[in-house]
């Protein structure tokens, strides 16, 4: 049951990324290219996603636990630190170099373009290296 719901959630997420145009690196790079012919399409994706999620999370605030688990897994509130900002900066550079963030890259595996597979492979290597080089936070 848990896996079936996670699969459904992944499918919905992937379909949303496709409908939003985020599986087209040209659209993503067009959004980040504010000095060129700017394409605001991603703004609509982000607005739709954030608004829907915010409403849903707010409605769920009254719940004491999720349907199939004992607790909600919410990241603890911590101060903004260099590690957060440095990681976000490194991610932003990679995003701007390729036009892929993790979700759209995974969805795009089925596009059967080998360059996309290369991106996914080095991204997985990056996650593995990150876990090795930077000790997990307690």
């Amino acid at each position, binding site marked *: 049951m*848990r*896996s079936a*719901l*996670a699969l*459904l*959630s*992944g499918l*919905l*997420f*992937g*379909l*949303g*990324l496709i*409908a939003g*145009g985020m*599986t087209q*690196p040209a659209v993503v*790079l067009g959004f*980040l*290219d*504010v000095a*060129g012919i700017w394409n605001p*399409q991603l703004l*609509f994706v*982000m607005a*739709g*996603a*954030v*608004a829907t*999620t*915010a409403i849903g*999370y707010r409605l769920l605030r009254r719940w004491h636990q999720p349907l199939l*688990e004992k607790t*909600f897994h919410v990241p603890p509130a911590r101060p903004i630190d260099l590690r*957060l*900002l440095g*990681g976000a*900066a490194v991610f*932003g*550079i*990679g995003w*701007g*170099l*390729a036009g892929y*963030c*993790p*979700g759209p*890259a*995974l*969805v*795009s595996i*089925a*596009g059967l373009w080998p*360059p996309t597979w290369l991106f996914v492979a*080095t*991204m997985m290597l*990056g*996650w593995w*290296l990150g*876990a090795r080089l930077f000790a997990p936070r307690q």
Partner: protein
Amino acid sequence: MSHFSTAAFGGILIGMSAVLLFATLGRIAGISGIFGRLIAGSEPGDRAWRVAFVAGLILAPLIATAIGGSNGIGRPDTGLLQLGLAGLLVGLGTRIGGGCTSGHGVCGVARMSGRSIAATLVFMVFGIVTVFAVRHFGRGG
């Protein structure tokens, strides 16, 4: 529908996915965390739902093709060296910074997390600056 309303509809689907995952499993829909922890850092009993979510992402283009006749996937128009480096930076950066466009940019911003709002501003600015450097300083790409 114009492509902007289709884009907003796509965003609503992403939001519905995030709400579904939170309501049932109590999890934040952050792709780098869900998949990244599968590679390093998850407990044995905590893997099946991660695998299932990633499988859903990978299978989505098949459903999209069945519904709309196109998988909606664009070809990356970037050199292999640049793509490989980009993937490495995306993996490292999201692991160090604890999230990507989905976990920080959608879910974190939706729950008004100060950390996620800060991270989102930073990766947007660095993404914009990187595209500017690649496209307008003639390094090619």
